[in-house]
């Protein structure tokens, strides 16, 4: 393995005079003739895994959730995945990908976090640390920083990028970060931007790096038609926003010289009240997510076959419905993997059961799979990250958590 040190923005500027002269193309993977793409979608707010992928074959399922337990029958029948599990009917695209062996569902899965604070849970999910201690960097950024750089110099390929005006922790860190978010005002002229960049280069290199990255991305963003409507929070607007940000992310990743690794966060999964599993809030959100997945597949084009998208959330929700037709903060949940590079069409679960004694602290789905194992498996087999680096730098202290083998075809 090569050096773990990635140059900072400052070093890049001082060393080469241009910010984009360093490429982190995953060299080992490229040597095999592959050109892998990896997108992480953080679902903030704690996704109800049991409402997303239902254990319809578990004899205790219906008694656990009562009217909220979707089954293969009823008014809103769930979509059958195998003899034991079925998918929320709001997600036909995910079901189609599963049928085409392009999706894997990991159930009863959790990070090492065992408390129930969103914010600590999100920090730990994104930092990759074993405990909720403050971190300035995320596992995805450190994974990228640890990859062997490819021989060829590339304008953007080595960068991780983030969607949205607020950079998610998962991509913060030593590897330079690009960011993009939906544009809603008339941009400043290139001349004004250049003057400002000159000033930043003298006065504030952090600001210089950010501004320079943004200019390079604008070109890709305007390379095709984009739906400018976004913002707002009604279900149609959420759907448009999810599809726009996810579709744009795919567009960046699909470019021959675009970035290879990215992340975005889709919020709103904290369903304490009137969860709406078959119809309503969660159903709308899952439907929006499903459309976003379809937009990724469409916009990726042929590189879809080299793509893995990981959808992760900070923790699950209570196994039972609470007093207000919702669910409170819980523990294990699902992790979803989609993409043409997967050996898919499988639900991976060491199923803990749903009897009271089987539940974690008698209230939550018990975690039996460590999310880090899944992510390490993808990073190792898809991006060819080094296992030792994964255990030491990317997910520190995770030696005992072996990468899940065989996720990637």
């Amino acid at each position, binding site marked *: 393995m090569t050096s773990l040190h990635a140059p900072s923005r400052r070093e890049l500027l001082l060393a080469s005079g241009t910010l984009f002269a360093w490429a982190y193309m995953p060299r080992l993977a490229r040597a095999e003739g592959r050109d892998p793409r990896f997108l992480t979608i953080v679902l903030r707010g704690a996704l109800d895994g049991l409402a997303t992928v239902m254990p319809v074959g578990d004899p205790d399922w219906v008694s656990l959730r009562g009217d909220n337990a979707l089954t293969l029958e009823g008014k809103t029948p769930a979509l059958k995945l195998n003899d034991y599990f079925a998918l929320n009917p709001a997600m036909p695209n995910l079901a189609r990908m599963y049928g085409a062996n392009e999706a894997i569902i990991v159930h009863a899965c959790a990070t090492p976090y065992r408390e129930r*604070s969103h914010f600590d849970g999100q920090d730990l999910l994104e930092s990759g640390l074993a405990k909720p201690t403050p971190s300035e960097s995320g596992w995805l950024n450190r994974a990228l920083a640890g990859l062997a750089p490819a021989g060829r110099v590339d304008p953007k390929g080595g960068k991780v990028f983030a969607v949205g*005006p607020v*950079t998610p922790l998962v991509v913060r860190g030593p590897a330079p970060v690009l960011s993009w978010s939906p544009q809603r005002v008339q941009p400043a002229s290139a001349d004004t931007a250049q003057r*400002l960049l000159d000033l930043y280069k003298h006065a504030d290199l952090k*600001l210089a790096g950010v501004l320079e990255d943004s200019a390079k991305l604008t070109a890709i963003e305007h390379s095709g038609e984009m739906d400018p409507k976004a913002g707002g929070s009604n279900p149609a607007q959420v759907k448009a926003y999810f599809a726009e940000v996810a579709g744009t992310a795919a567009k960046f990743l699909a470019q021959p010289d675009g970035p290879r690794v990215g992340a975005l966060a889709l919020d709103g999964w904290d369903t304490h009240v009137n969860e709406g599993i078959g119809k309503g809030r969660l159903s709308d959100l899952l439907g929006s997510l499903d459309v976003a997945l379809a937009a990724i597949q469409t916009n990726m084009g042929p590189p879809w076959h080299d793509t893995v998208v990981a959808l992760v959330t900070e923790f699950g929700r209570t196994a039972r419905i609470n*007093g*207000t037709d919702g669910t409170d903060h819980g523990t294990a949940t699902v992790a979803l993997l989609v993409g043409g590079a997967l050996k898919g069409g499988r639900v991976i679960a060491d199923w803990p059961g749903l009897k009271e004694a089987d539940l974690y602290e008698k209230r939550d789905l018990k975690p039996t799979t460590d999310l880090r194992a899944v992510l390490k498996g993808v990073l190792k087999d898809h991006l060819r990250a080094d296992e030792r680096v994964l255990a030491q730098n990317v997910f520190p202290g995770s030696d005992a958590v072996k990468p899940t083998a065989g996720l990637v075809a």
Partner: protein
Amino acid sequence: MVARGKEAAALALHRFGFGPSGGEIAAIADDPRGAVLADIDRPLAGNIDGPLPTSSESARAVFDFQAAQQAKQKLTQRMQKPDSVGMMQVSSEAIAAITADLAVGQKPGENQPPLPQQLFLNEAKARIDAATSSNIGFVERLVWFWSNHFCISADKVVAMSGPYEREAIRPFVRRRFFDMLQAVESHPAMLVYLDNVESMGANSVAGINRDKGLNENLARETMELHTLGVHGGYTQQDVTSYANVITGWTWIPPVEPNHGGEFAFAKRLHEPGVKIVLGKFYADTGLQQGREVLADFAKHPATAHHIAQKLAAHFVADEPPPSLVAKLEQTFKDTGGDLKEVGKTLVSADESWTPQRTKLKAPSTWIVAMLRLASPAAIAPNAIGRIVGAQATLGESLWRPLAPNGYPDTEAAWIDGVPHRLNIANEFAARVAATVDPMALLDEGLGPLASSDTRQTVARAETRAQALTLLVMAPEFLRS
């Protein structure tokens, strides 16, 4: 090292206020620290005057409007089916009455947004006006800090988001922490936002009759975010127990014409019995039970530390000097959480006057700095829509944080949005540049803080608009 003179004056206005407006740097240069301290004592600081509705009035008005809107839709549907009996029932009086209901607050001949948006924009305008016109602006910055600390979201409580800040935050930023805490946790906007109005004790009368129960959302965030902090030493059992304590803290639904939208304690929903929170027994005194627990949360040493850390990080540096945090914490404990005294300690401490300006202003704070610099006179009366839009574009929609921990407060969170600020600055500058002198504004806005590079860049710009854009995007103006 501590900044002095004009440099300290400019630093104070950016760090403790919203940036200088015309002549302010010179006006406070003799004693910058004294000027900020005087702002804490100014009687009307942080006050919003003007006829704005209470939260309950606003909630009822929006409810009535939405009901009328629904009725109008139904009438329209009936009229589109001429064969149905419905057609017979549509009287011209009904149409006239509903049309009048929907036009509440609309001035004839003007094309205004519908009532809910209009109420929101009125509140937004009052808030922006208060910030742009304030002296120094320290107390106003405290209002923004506490409003974000105890945030709600307009996505859930659009009618009450502005009134909530005026009722539960503004009156208390210079009083005891407990006073604000009690106002916040019993405000209908918070009770709706964090679902407490849905919660009921499983053994309460309503819980038994309706077969419903607890929702622990507000209880958890009160402990984790509002008071003790996530490492404050409480357990899941404490959260559940405190959630039971505050069952019955609810509101009167806005459909009720006289008191709809007001706080109510409903014994019918309240979980009966003694409860144990953080190892202490609380007798079942109804509403009082919750107040007693809140009083103990406010007194808890973990709360003092949590608040001290957040305040220091907000005003001074993402990672503030521990000695400063310790001073704030000590004052908080010594004075029983007197927020005026805590504010004075913050301003008096030498650590708060370090010339290193590493904080990246949050988008809305930066927007107000830009408005103050260009002089409020340059701001069109109808600009509030654009200002609210700019806040949204930059990821800080007014009263709409994504989660109950509010908007982030660090450089790492905001820095990648800086290129978007360039576009906002560009649009703003295009509107006001004709009436301003950029070099004069450079002196007014930054004074001795401006580097020679920044001076040169602004001076060499090819248009006034470009000069103003570059000025408000200069590192010295983005940072505090």
